[in-house]
Every structure is written in structure tokens, then in C-alpha cells.
């Protein structure tokens, strides 16, 4: 039996009466310290500043936010240690459909009304489970993935692990995926599917295949999930990423547009929508989305230089040089100096394109580094765009050749071709494409080194 008087509770609900009700129930099982959060921001603030032991969170938080979205952000930004308990509280039976489908799940959910005894029973069980997985959580947190997997394997074989066999398999698959063992991750998810066709496991297979660049198979898998579980929004995000990798940018944008309307405050999704719109040539949507993200994503530290550069890029693509200039010159020099090389490359390239007299020197200064370094895909495209505009075919062709030879060739093919066409260099682009294809064939025919 756990002494809940020493545990810190956080109750998250936008309705005052409901908060009082949850506190009364928590006090009945012995809780002494019960804090309240009345909205999403307040919840994030309290969790970051003083991590609670037990979170009781209502599913509906008002203002277009849900407890599920809160949970997803907490997990993605690593704000919640595995040892803390996140219990979703809901009167909505529809939440069961969500929790049975999605990849990011709370420790448990409980349907209102419920007795203090039932909450106690559920919390005790979660505590038992967390104690069982304790050593694994520690290794996972240190990113000792091999050790974490070894612990899970031992637990899987143990008698005490029998009640948790699905959770063990799920954790194995997730760790394999996180550590880049994508083929093994796929196998682990297939093992789960042998037991039951969980949507999250099917999505896991699609994710593993996507990471292996087996896009058509990934697409077939994720299409099924999106069709069968339309409330599994992350599956729609994954479908969009796969579509983009296949060069189907219009489909990616349409998929994201639909889910984004249902989750108006999900800014990671809006970033993805902006990316799809940019690739799809819809700079108006990309601008609207990135402007929304930058003004409204209030997750602490959420707005990265890459976000501002994405907005600048979409301004430029829309032909609005003035807004591009204002945004880029609005960034402080000290800030720009601390950018990663990728972001510095994009910054210099975009500035050179919108205000050549101010940007050209910076871009030329970076040129030696740009010629010698492998950049991220968005940075490469910015560099190619600027290099073509500044009549520097060597720099443009070098990055274009590398992109065409890489895993994202299909994703960026249409955009690159359009850029080259804009400068009357279609023939050169076709030659680059041919070289990349030959290189690929040569690469595939070369037996791997023994």
C-alpha cells in the first residue's frame, strides 16, 4: 500500500467544480498536496517547475486543447519522467477509442464517475508496473539503449513479466526505433501484430519502413491505419511524411490540412503542414501556418531559428521580399552567430536572395564551408536557390547532386527541377539526375565490403 500523503498531485481541468471534485477524491485516498492547473499553459508551467508524482488530467481542456495533446507534448519535450504517473480522467467514452489506437498513451485512463477506491486500485497497479520497469527507465533515460534492451529481454523471460508482456514488446519496439535499429523495430512490431492488430503497432511498422526508406510499403501500411482510425492524428502526420518522401506533396498537404483543422492548437502539426505546403508550392498556406506557429506556440523554447527561417523562406517564395528582409534583419547578430551551420547557411542564402547588397558578402564568406560540408535538406535547397541566383553553378550543382543521390531525392525532386528551370538550366539538371541514377546503380551493383 502506498502512502499518498507524501505524493504531490496535480489536477488539470478547465472547470472549477471538476477540479474540486478531483481534489476531494484525491484527498479521500490520502493525498495532502494537491495543486491545480486551470489550463494548458498553467499545466506545462507547473509540471516544468516542480514535477508532480501524480497527474490527474481531464481529457477536455477547452480552448481547442485536449489532455491527449498535453500528454504528447510532455512526452515529446521530455518534460515528464517515466516515474511520474499521468492518469487521464474522462467522461467521454470516445477517449477509449483514442487510447486504444495511439502510440503515446497515458499510464492509465479512468472514466467518470469513479470511486476513490477505484482510483486507489488503479494508482497502486501503476506503481507496481513502474517499479517493475524501474531499471529499464533509468537506462533508457541515459540513452544506454543496448543495456535497456537487455533489461527488457530479461524481464520478458521472467515469470513476473507475464502480465506486462505487451508493454515489454512495445517498449522493445520503441527503443529499437529510437536507436536506429529500424529492421529489428519492424520485426518487434510484427511480433505484436501476431497477437492483435493494434493500430499503434501497424503505425510502428509504417514508421520503421519509412526510416528504412521503403516508402511504398510504409504508405500501404499507414493508409490502412488512417482509414480505420481517423482519430489517430499522429498516424495522419506519419502518412504526410511518407507522402512527402514519395514526392506526393499535394496529398501530404491535404492530409495535414484535414487533421490540423481538428487540432487547431497543435503547432508541431502546423510546422509539418507548412513544410508540405512549401514543397507543394503553396507559399500562402506555408506563410499563414508559420506565422501562426511563431505567434502562438507558447511551449517554452519551442520557437527555433529553423521556424523563423521557414517563415522567411515562405515569404520569399511568395515573392514578398520586404517581409523576408524585415524578418531576417530583425534577428540579432549575436543570435545569428550562435546558429548551427545549417541555419547560418539558410540565413545567408535567404538574405542574399532578398537583399543582395547586404547578403552577398555573408554568403560568399560562408562559401568555402558550404562547398565542403554536408548540410540539412532545407539548408541545401536554400543554398542551391541562392547559388543559382548568384550565378555560382559549382556550389549549386554540388549540393543538387548530393541531394539527388540521397534518400530524400523523391521528396525534393520537383522543387529542384523548378529551381533549375527558373534559371534556364533544365538540361544541366537532367544531367545531374542521370549521374545520380548511374551512381545509384553502380552503388547497388558493388558488393558490400566483407
Amino acid at each position, binding site marked *: 500500500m502506498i502512502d499518498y500523503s507524501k505524493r504531490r498531485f496535480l489536477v488539470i481541468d478547465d*472547470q472549477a*467544480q*471538476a477540479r*474540486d*471534485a*478531483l481534489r*476531494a*477524491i484525491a*484527498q*479521500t485516498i490520502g493525498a495532502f498536496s494537491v495543486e491545480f492547473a486551470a489550463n494548458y499553459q498553467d499545466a506545462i508551467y507547473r509540471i516544468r517547475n516542480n514535477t508532480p508524482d501524480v497527474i490527474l488530467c481531464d481529457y477536455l481542456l477547452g480552448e481547442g486543447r485536449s489532455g491527449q495533446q498535453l500528454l504528447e507534448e510532455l512526452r515529446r519535450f521530455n518534460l515528464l519522467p517515466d516515474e511520474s504517473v499521468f492518469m487521464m480522467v474522462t*467522461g*467521454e*467514452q*470516445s477517449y*477509449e*477509442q483514442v*487510447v*486504444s489506437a495511439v502510440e503515446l498513451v497515458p499510464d492509465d485512463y479512468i*472514466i*467518470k*464517475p*469513479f*470511486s*476513490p*477506491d*477505484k482510483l486507489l*486500485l488503479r494508482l497502486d*497497479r501503476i506503481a507496481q508496473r513502474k517499479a517493475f520497469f524501474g531499471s529499464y527507465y533509468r537506462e533508457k533515460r541515459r540513452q544506454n539503449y543496448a543495456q535497456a534492451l537487455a533489461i527488457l529481454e530479461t524481464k520478458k523471460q521472467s515469470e513476473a513479466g*507475464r*502480465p*506486462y*508482456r*505487451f*508493454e515489454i514488446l512495445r517498449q522493445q519496439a520503441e527503443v529499437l526505433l529510437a536507436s536506429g535499429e529500424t529492421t529489428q523495430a519492424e520485426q518487434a512490431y510484427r511480433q505484436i501484430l501476431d*497477437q*492483435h492488430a*493494434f493500430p499503434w503497432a501497424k503505425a510502428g511498422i509504417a514508421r520503421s519502413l519509412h526510416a528504412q526508406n521503403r516508402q511504398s510499403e510504409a504508405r500501404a501500411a499507414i493508409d490502412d491505419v488512417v482509414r*480505420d482510425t481517423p482519430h489517430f492524428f499522429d498516424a495522419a502526420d506519419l502518412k504526410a511524411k511518407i507522402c512527402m518522401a514519395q514526392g506526393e506533396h499535394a496529398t501530404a498537404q491535404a492530409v495535414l490540412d484535414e487533421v490540423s483543422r481538428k487540432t487547431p492548437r497543435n503547432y508541431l502539426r502546423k510546422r509539418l503542414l507548412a513544410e508540405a505546403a512549401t514543397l507543394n508550392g503553396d507559399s500562402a498556406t506555408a506563410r499563414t501556418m508559420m506565422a501562426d506557429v511563431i505567434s502562438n506556440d507558447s511551449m517554452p523554447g519551442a520557437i527555433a531559428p529553423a521556424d523563423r527561417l521557414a517563415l522567411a523562406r515562405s515569404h520569399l517564395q511568395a515573392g514578398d521580399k520586404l517581409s523576408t528582409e524585415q524578418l531576417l534583419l530583425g534577428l540579432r547578430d549575436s543570435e545569428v552567430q550562435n546558429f548551427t551551420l545549417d541555419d547560418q547557411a539558410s540565413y545567408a542564402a535567404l538574405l542574399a536572395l532578398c537583399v543582395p547588397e547586404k547578403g552577398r558578402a555573408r554568403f560568399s564568406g560562408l562559401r568555402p564551408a558550404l562547398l565542403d560540408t554536408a548540410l540539412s535538406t532545407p539548408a541545401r535547397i536554400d543554398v542551391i536557390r541562392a547559388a543559382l541566383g548568384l550565378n555560382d553553378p559549382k556550389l549549386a550543382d554540388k549540393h543538387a547532386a548530393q541531394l539527388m543521390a540521397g534518400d530524400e531525392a523523391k521528396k525534393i525532386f520537383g522543387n529542384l527541377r523548378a529551381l533549375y528551370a527558373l534559371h534556364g538550366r533544365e538540361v544541366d539538371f537532367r544531367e545531374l539526375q542521370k549521374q545520380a541514377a548511374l551512381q545509384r546503380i553502380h552503388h547497388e551493383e558493388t558488393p558490400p565490403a566483407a
Partner: protein
Amino acid sequence: MQKLLDVLASGIHDSKNQLFLAESLVAAYENQHQADLGEVRFAIENAASRLSRSLAAYRLLRDGAQLAIVPVIIADLVDEVALAQRAHLSKQGLRLALDCPVVDAWPLDRDLIADLLNNAIQNACRYARQQIRLSARLDHEILILRVDDDGPGFAQLPPASGIGLLLAERIASLHQHQGRCGQLLLGNDSPLGGAWLELRLPT
């Protein structure tokens, strides 16, 4: 149809929130005054279950219904049903015996199955003399969840089909594994002397 379902679901959701407020007030009163108002809370939870069941019936009896399948530790499920029922049964002078040698987790719709078992025990409670038994076991890759009682048995078999039974049969048949469907069976030859209900789920 979907719109009507949304309206119903929203109304039921609001009602359950109100019932939760009521239950929390009762719990707080019990806590402050060391009182036992378990029967009040039981009635509140029963009202909520009936609302949920009506919504579930409306949703599941249509085509294309989907379950919410999650891995469930069977011993936990049995304990939870016992927790919901035991105090009320003991007020009626009835004993609830448990028998659950199943250690593993199995994929099933936790809330629907729990409600089905709660409802079966409630029905048994109306006829049982002294004892009801809730048991779980595995038999040739079938998970069997069973409620026995020592009452006079069903007056007729199969019994007149009410919404509860119809829903239970539907829940059973929606649980499928490798082409096999779950089944609901009823009988009158329980070892306890009365009726029995068996939910057989393929695993």
C-alpha cells in the same frame, strides 16, 4: 445518424460529469464524518453505467462498430469488478467468490467487458441465495470469463432477450482473433446450483 450519436454522447458525457460531482461530494462527506455511504455511491455509479450502456448499445448495434482493444491484465479486471460489486452484494447478504488463475494480459475492450461482467453479477444478485462466483480461466486458447450463482436458474433458456443480453452477445462477437469470434453462453447447471453466464474470447 452520426449527428444524433454526437448529441446523445454529449448529453451523456455532461450527465456523467454531474454524477461525478455528486460522487465526489459524497466521498468527501464520508471522509470528513467517517460515514459509509457506499450504497449512495453505488447507485450513482450504476446510473452512470446505465447511461454508458445505452450509448454503447446504440453505437455497437450498428454496422461498422469498433471496439477499443487494449492489453488487459485479467486478474486486475476481475479485481476491479469485485471492487465495484462486493460491498453492495454483502449488503444483500451475498458473498462474491473469485477464482482467477490467469496471469497474462489479453487484448480486449476493458470497459465494455467490465460493464458486461458488472451487469451479469447484478442480474445474478437478483436471484442468488448466498453466493455468486466470478472466475477467469484459459481453455485451449479461449479466455473464459464466467459468472455462476446459486439461485433458481433462468426461468427459460434462452431467456427473453433484453437489451443487456443483446449487447453482451454483440460485445462477445466483436472480439475476434484470427477469424474466430467470441461467444456468449448461458446455462442452468452451475456447480453452485443456479445459472451461469460464460463469455468466451478467442486469444
